[in-house]
């Protein structure tokens, strides 16, 4: 049982949905990024996704593209991203860490070496956007063998015929992409999303987390009524951007800006089912 499995089991016992927060490693710089990560659990994040910056993030919208470029310009690389995970883990043994990004930096680091180092750093799972089930042999199967979760994205275009293939080697949770589009895009129609999550649940017992286009407590709460967790990313990295000074450097407000949005989102997600029951 990974920390991800344990966390979703705990959420189930508490009878509430979880909040999954995405921030970019090294954005706006390594130290501030470490401080943001540290602040997330206390602000109400249940699972932490750390973005591995990449020059060519083809599934991401402008907010996450810009966050990745800020991080790369500040000198972030995969070695330092693993350091961030290790630092976080030394102070927090319970909150699951999922690394999210694109395959090339991992491929260049070396898959076997990466899995050893990620596990040693306290990473619990991976989401790699450009590795569909057709390329499972690359990283998914080695990841499962290493005892980490490989979390797959399911999308509105993943029909019932294809879902079993997508779910076959998925573990930890299923990440449902609520819209056809890029991160931070159009807001999803919550009714459609809830129906889509029901469809996925007919095929799997895994928890379902819903992301893409969720940006405030209201939309987070609406989705939390029908899913095990809600993922928020673009809205958080936008908070980072808006807090920077004219030179693009972190300010005393940066960490607090992210934490306060996380707190609002967490309140929305936590109250969602209670409100639904009333």
């Amino acid at each position: 049982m990974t920390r991800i499995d344990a966390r979703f089991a705990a959420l189930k016992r508490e009878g509430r949905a979880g909040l999954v927060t995405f921030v970019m490693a090294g954005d706006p710089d390594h130290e501030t990024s470490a401080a943001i990560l540290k602040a997330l659990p206390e602000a109400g994040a249940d699972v932490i996704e750390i973005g591995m910056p990449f020059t060519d993030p083809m599934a991401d919208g402008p907010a996450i593209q810009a966050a990745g470029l800020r991080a790369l310009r500040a000198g972030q690389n995969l070695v330092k991203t693993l350091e961030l995970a290790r630092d976080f883990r030394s102070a927090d043994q319970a909150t699951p860490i999922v690394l999210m990004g694109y395959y090339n930096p991992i491929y260049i680091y070396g898959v076997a070496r990466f899995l050893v180092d990620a596990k040693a750093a306290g990473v619990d799972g991976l989401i790699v956007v450009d590795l569909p089930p057709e390329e499972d042999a690359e990283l998914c199967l080695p990841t499962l063998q290493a005892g980490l979760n490989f979390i797959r994205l399911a999308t509105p275009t993943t029909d019932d015929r294809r879902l079993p293939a997508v779910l076959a080697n998925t573990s930890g949770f299923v990440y449902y992409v609520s819209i056809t589009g890029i991160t931070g895009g159009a807001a999803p129609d919550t009714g459609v999303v809830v129906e889509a999550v029901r469809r996925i649940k007919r095929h799997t017992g895994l928890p379902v987390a819903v992301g893409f286009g969720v940006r405030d407590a209201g939309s987070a709460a609406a989705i939390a009524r029908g899913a095990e967790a809600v993922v928020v990313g673009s809205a958080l990295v936008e908070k980072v951007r808006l807090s920077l000074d004219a030179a693009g450097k972190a300010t005393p407000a940066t960490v607090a800006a992210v934490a306060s949005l996380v707190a609002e989102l967490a309140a929305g997600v936590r109250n969602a089912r209670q409100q639904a029951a009333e």
Partner: protein
Amino acid sequence: MNVLPHPNSYRTGPDEHGHFGIYGGRFVAETLMPLILDLEKAYADARADPRFRKEMDSHLATYVGRPSPLYFAERLTGHCGGAKIYFKREELNHTGAHKVNNVLGQIMLALRMGKTRIIAETGAGMHGVATATLCAKFGLPCIVYMGAVDVERQKPNVLRMKMLGAEVRAVESGSRTLKDAMNEALRDWVTNVAETFYCIGTVAGPHPYPAMVRDFQSIIGEETREQMLAAEGRLPDSLVACIGGGSNAMGLFYPFLDDRAIEIYGVEAAGLGLATGKHAASIAGGRPGVLHGNRTYLLMNEDGQIEEAHSISAGLDYPGIGPEHAWLNDLGRVKFLSATDDEAVAAFALCSKLEGIIPALEPAHALARAIDIARQKPKDHLMVVNLSGRGDKDLATVADYLQRCT
């Protein structure tokens, strides 16, 4: 470089998963995966349908103007004093480059699939112009993504695309060149999945694009084969083509891959020189990685971050290369060379003056190396250079360049 054992045929790839050796594949987001599987099936159906081929041949003859001539470049041959140099005149195609061969096939396939909106990426603008042209002909809306840097340096093609009714979207993200245009086109596709057909301009991207684009471009090599047999009574001894993504090269090379006596040369853009790091030669200066849906040679740093390519030619200014070229390189079947900006501009000027043909800067790279190779060959050596596009679009760039250098 690992030299692999020679296969029985070089024309068997890709395998059913879209791999050429370790290259190729389908490294795309899940949202796109069902579309790519649909496309693969639709293309297989179209390929097996003689009516599709017949309709395509008819458009190629009456609209594109095929076959393009195989021309004996007599004065350039005399200048070099060695091999007999022929040009495959792809610059005489409608729209002025080889790009139209592929676009025609893809647009016909889009119509067959019931798609109602076409998107494309473009570097030099030739693929964008070809896509805009065929969308006009077939009455489809067309959106072309083009890096903001390229919009600036290829203005005539931007005007052509707009005149043809296409919407040109300048891409301001990343390095604002071809790779970023491709990222943006993929983002559009992932957002507008149901009605949109992504018309990729080169032999790269997720399977089935590299094989499909190669097939549509192979008419270049098929015609060359017949034309050379008619002109000289035998096959050529060498083939030379420039390589960015590598579609004009793949189109010329593919029908000759199993004629093992034929020397095949691909010419990458060496920009300011391979040693400066400012180039677009992914085979000479890159290593295998994963980008834009396929594994291939890429320019990148030690962290796997993609580096900006540099070339005077916008059409070669891409940090990758088609996966089949990567495979042919490792097998040693195609020899990859490079030419600098300086060498390409010199060849551009020489070809213009000796032959009355102003080549695009892209094939000027092929010409630069062809001239060197021709000098070392005997007079009965038959060489074909793919003159993949015309140079009107590059006149301002070359004029600026020559002014700076004098």
